């Protein structure tokens, strides 16, 4: 009897430990993208009481605050609609929408970039709704003594060829890279549009998954360099110009500053009436010039250029 009891205790203990080990999926993953180009339907004001039903959205934690805030407003206008927004990361959002577990999958990257090879078929079924744009700037510790880096200089820094700030005209200070994890959407955007190449993790580099932590690390670590979404920039870090272009909202909108990406909300097939009404509401001026701007994203409908999954930029 005693040993039986102790076995049950051991099993229970194991389960609790194992749960606590894997349950900690807390990374705050602020990322990069935004968008608009693909949305075909003209945004219209949705009037209340027309639609009802429930919507479940999950995915990108970078997009989550915006979707939550807009969902709140939409539910106020449409009493019959219940919207739940979950985080979990872009990969989770895309997986769940592809498997029809949720109505909307939020992602920082194009579905085709995450659902590759065996999953490529799944990506074809997904319909892209680009609701905002996020621009990313290279930032450095204020004492680095540099305020502009060329594309080549950035590539050399992030591939480990340049290891001291004095090589790019700054202080005599070792460069410390503060990176995002290899699977991060922000890192993918930065590598694709600022560096033009994927980079390997270097020994001694630091990876943090939350933009808040990245900013804190860059501000406190002498010689640090990293990259952050525009909404996170402030006095504690030095924002670097890219090829002499300032990372400002105006430069992003006009297409001068290239390091930006869409925030996507994917549906599996064409959305039903309720989901469509919600997505349309996202693209109204009220939301785009209100909530989107307020939370530090760039309105998708303001962009003067558009970009496809291959990265080809066209003027609108």
């Amino acid at each position, binding site marked *: 009897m005693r040993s039986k009891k102790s076995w049950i205790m051991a099993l229970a203990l194991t389960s609790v430990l194992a749960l606590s080990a894997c349950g900690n999926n807390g990374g705050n993953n602020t990322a990069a993208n935004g968008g608009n180009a693909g949305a075909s339907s003209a945004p219209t004001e949705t009037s209340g009481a027309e639609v009802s039903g429930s919507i479940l959205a999950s995915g990108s934690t970078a997009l989550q605050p915006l979707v939550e805030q807009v969902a709140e407003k939409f539910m106020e206008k449409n009493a019959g609609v219940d919207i739940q927004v979950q985080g979990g990361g872009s990969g*989770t959002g895309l997986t769940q929408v592809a498997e029809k577990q949720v109505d909307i999958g939020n992602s920082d990257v194009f579905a085709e970039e995450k659902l590759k090879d065996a999953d490529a078929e799944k990506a074809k079924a997904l319909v892209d709704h680009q609701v905002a744009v996020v621009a990313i700037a290279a930032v450095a510790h204020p004492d680095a003594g540099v305020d502009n880096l060329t594309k080549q200089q950035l590539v050399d820094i992030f591939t480990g060829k340049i290891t001291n700030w004095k090589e790019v005209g700054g202080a005599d200070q070792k460069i410390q890279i503060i990176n995002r994890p*290899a699977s991060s959407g922000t890192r993918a955007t930065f590598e694709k549009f600022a560096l033009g190449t*994927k980079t390997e993790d270097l020994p001694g580099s*630091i990876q943090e998954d939350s933009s808040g932590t990245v900013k804190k690390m860059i501000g406190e670590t002498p010689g640090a360099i990293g990259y952050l979404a525009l909404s996170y920039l402030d006095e504690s870090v030095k924002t670097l110009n890219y090829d002499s272009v300032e990372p400002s909202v105006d430069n992003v909108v006009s297409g001068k500053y290239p390091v930006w990406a869409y925030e996507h909300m994917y549906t599996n097939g064409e959305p039903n009436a309720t989901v469509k009404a919600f997505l349309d509401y996202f693209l109204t001026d009220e939301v785009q010039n209100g909530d989107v701007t307020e939370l530090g994203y760039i309105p998708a409908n303001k962009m003067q250029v558009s970009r496809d999954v291959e990265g080809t930029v066209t003027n609108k």
Partner: protein
Amino acid sequence: MRAQSSKSRIEKHHIEDLIGRSYMSFCVLLLIVSIVSMVYFVTSRGISTFAIDKVSFSDFFFGTNWSPEGDHPSFGALPFIAGSFITTLLAALIASPLSICAALFMTEIVPGWGKKLLQPVIELLSGIPSVVYGFVGLSVIVPFLRNVFPGQGIGVAAGALVLSVMILPTITSVAADALSALPQNLKESSFALGATRWQTIARVIIPTTLPAILTGVVLGMARAFGEALAVQMVIGNAPFIPTSLFESASTLTSVITLGMGNTTMGSPQNNALWSMALVLMLMTFLFVFIVRMLEKRRSI
């Protein structure tokens, strides 16, 4: 009349008994089903790295190159396994002497106010969420290490220090329980033979309670091994085996938390993360097994 009421009372007992028994059976069944399904889920996911993606065991467990996003993906998990073991062992090395001293202080040196003051404080430590530990580590320990030692402060040492504070309460409370459960006459006979307090502690109390104290250490190590968020914030997460205490490294848990949400279910990288979760689970089993062995030794 009397017979009837006693009969109905008996029936009530029966009903209560039945309700209690079925509720408990239900709970136990639920527990067993959830444990079995969880173990099955983690195992099946974890094995698919080897079964579906054809990554070889030796590449995974002994490969040092982790680049799942590259053109030639490679899934060497050795740096993370090494990182987990190094931080866990270091944390146990730092925390164990402190915890054992705290437990001795509470039970042997100053059992009165020492226990009243120290115990709530130590119990408080175990209630603090790990993100707070991570943030304190990032704001206090990392700048301290950066100023005193070479490197950027972030790294194995910072991770081990944060973990050691987190496992302190586990070891202390298990050790204190064991010490206070020690039969009084053992100590009294030691004093009666003319032994000093120090001799009694070193020669009688510690040897007798050692298996129980070790149980606490192993439980603490199990906690340290599974801790994710706080370590992830301060260890740096570079996928390399650290060559110094002040170099950025990764643990199994930190890689899982960083990658899980950003990868799609079923992709090779996601499967590799599940394989690491499987390694974590097996390690937990091992820790529990060790605890059971220690307890068996104690009961003899």
